[in-house]
């Protein structure tokens, strides 16, 4: 943008600075992940190894999947406060019915995705605030989870255990899985022609309607995708923990929101990034326990660390936008 074509409005400088700010903001997730990694390497160099990463990123896959699930609703300007208990419900189904009666288990899980799709339709048709609806649903899922599995227990299906304990050469499985998740979702949401419509529904719904698209359909698709990735997250979680508990996913609601925001997503406007969301989830997974143990921070303060990281990254984002303005 060095030469301004004659006759056009001479306003290319705000554009390039806006683009620069956007680039900087999109680098932020990778930067915060790098910082956490450097901190770990500095505190305990031995952690940077095949075994160390396998251990530290143990829970990264379910967190990344839950974050992606949350990202889909956020790209449609909604929020899901029930994803945590939903992951717990899926976990309970996985550890019981999916092992003992696979057909029933599959039907129930597909039905759960269907419930998500219906919620999307309900929220759109009745113009409901998704926060309240999903807050209510969080109780529904938790109640169902307790009904399915009243006491902690159950066992993951063998094929799932085998999958989650897969040990590929050189690169630990969680890293490969994160790469695959990020690549698949990035392609689906950012590169396909219907992905454009889904993101557009968050960016300017009125324009989409005027172009003849159904906003009911975009909302249903986004919620169904959230349900799908919630199911994947719950199954992955049980594949790692081997047994379930009705409260196992409760912390995921907040982790998932934090992951999307850390990854450069915004609550409104359809501005989300699947790659950023996965990076954000990895950052949170790393920061959640190992880093703090290395830093001799008592476990009491581990929850606070998540809050603090969130606040620091958001503050950095504000600083960037301010300077570029």
């Amino acid at each position: 943008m060095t030469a301004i074509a004659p006759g056009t409005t001479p306003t290319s400088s705000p554009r390039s600075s806006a683009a620069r700010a956007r680039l900087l903001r999109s680098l932020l997730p990778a930067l915060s992940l790098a910082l956490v990694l450097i901190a770990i390497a500095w505190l305990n160099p031995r952690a940077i190894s095949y075994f160390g990463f396998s251990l530290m990123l143990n829970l990264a896959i379910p967190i990344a999947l839950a974050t992606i699930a949350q990202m889909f609703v956020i790209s449609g300007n909604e929020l899901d406060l029930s994803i945590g208990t939903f992951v717990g419900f899926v976990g309970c189904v996985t550890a019981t019915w999916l092992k003992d009666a696979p057909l029933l288990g599959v039907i129930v899980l597909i039905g759960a995705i269907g419930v998500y799709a219906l919620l999307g339709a309900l929220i759109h048709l009745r113009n409901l605030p998704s926060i309240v609806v999903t807050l209510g649903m969080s109780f529904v899922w938790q109640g169902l989870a307790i009904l399915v599995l009243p006491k902690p227990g159950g066992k993951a299906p063998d094929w799932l255990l085998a999958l989650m304990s897969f040990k590929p050469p050189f690169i630990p499985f969680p890293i490969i899985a994160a790469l695959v998740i990020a690549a698949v979702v990035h392609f689906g949401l950012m590169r396909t022609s219907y992905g454009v419509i889904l993101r557009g529904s968050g960016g300017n719904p009125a324009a989409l309607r005027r172009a003849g698209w159904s906003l009911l359909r975009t909302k249903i698709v986004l919620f169904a995708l959230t349900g799908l990735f919630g199911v994947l997250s719950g199954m992955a979680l049980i594949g790692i923990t081997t047994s379930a508990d009705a409260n196992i996913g409760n912390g995921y609601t907040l982790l998932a929101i934090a992951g999307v925001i850390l990854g450069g997503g915004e609550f409104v406007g359809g501005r989300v990034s699947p790659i950023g969301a996965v990076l954000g989830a990895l950052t949170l997974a790393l920061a959640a326990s190992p880093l703090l143990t290395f830093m001799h921070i008592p476990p009491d303060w581990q929850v606070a660390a998540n809050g603090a990281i969130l606040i620091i990254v958001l503050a950095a984002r504000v600083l960037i936008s301010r300077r570029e303005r």
Partner: protein
Amino acid sequence: MTFVKSLAAKPWIWSFLGALLVWLATISFTGGYGGGGMVTAALSLAVFTVIVGVGQMFVITLGPGNVDLSLPANIGLASAVAMKVMDGSDSMIVVGLLAALACGAAIGAVNYLLIWALRIPPIIATLSASFIIQSIDISYGRGLQIKPPPGFADFANWQILGIPVLAILTVLFTIGAAIALQRMIYGRSVLAIGQNIRAAWLAGVNVGRTRFLTYTLSGVLGGIDGALLAGYFRGANVDIGNEYLLASIAVVVIGGTSVAGGKANVPGVWGAALFLVLLLTMLNTFGVSAGVRLLLTGLIIVGVITVAGGEKASR
């Protein structure tokens, strides 16, 4: 007839009707036994939901996206602070209450500071704050099982003719809140901001101060609630506030306050709180499991918001 009609037009009447129905269902199940005691117990428990519910109501009335997710953590920390300051001594009750109040006010102020300084949605601001408060509470209240001073515990459980004194005080407080909402500049400002924040600013409403006051008020009410809960249950613990996240939002919604903002309803908070408490009592009386109880609570909230959501769409 016109009286019935005008009553039916009040959105809060439905929550009281619901509470009445649930109560009737329960005493018909028990054959009329324990009806009065149930009301007393319901009033005692509803008080705690009403106090935080009113705080949440003012916050939600500020408009879409405004919600205080830090209330449970706030209640937990304030209850610990109050018990520690009172230290089991009757002479320190007032100081302890003031400490809980100050703790809540500080949390509310920090919430708004995050919203304002980082320009982030209130959900994420109060969420990150609650992470940190939770850790402070865990660290501060470790191994803390200090009992409240006997005088304070007696006060929190004091009844006159079967009516809890706390409930009477809370009714007075809610009347005050209703007057503030309709007849004071602060309340009008909250309502104006909730309907249209930009129009409110252009009409000369002090938007920043009103939002700051509202978040601080919510924090203060959370703090007081924490202290009273610790007195009523004779002890503080980290999880004491957990159920008040959903409960505070649920009573606001069921009570007829618009989630889209700008329209609040104080009596409805009482009706909805009684409804929820009696509903739990009923399900316990029927002997249903915890799973069914959670399931039904969730479905009722989704059902109520689905029915109530329609009027907003007309705008």
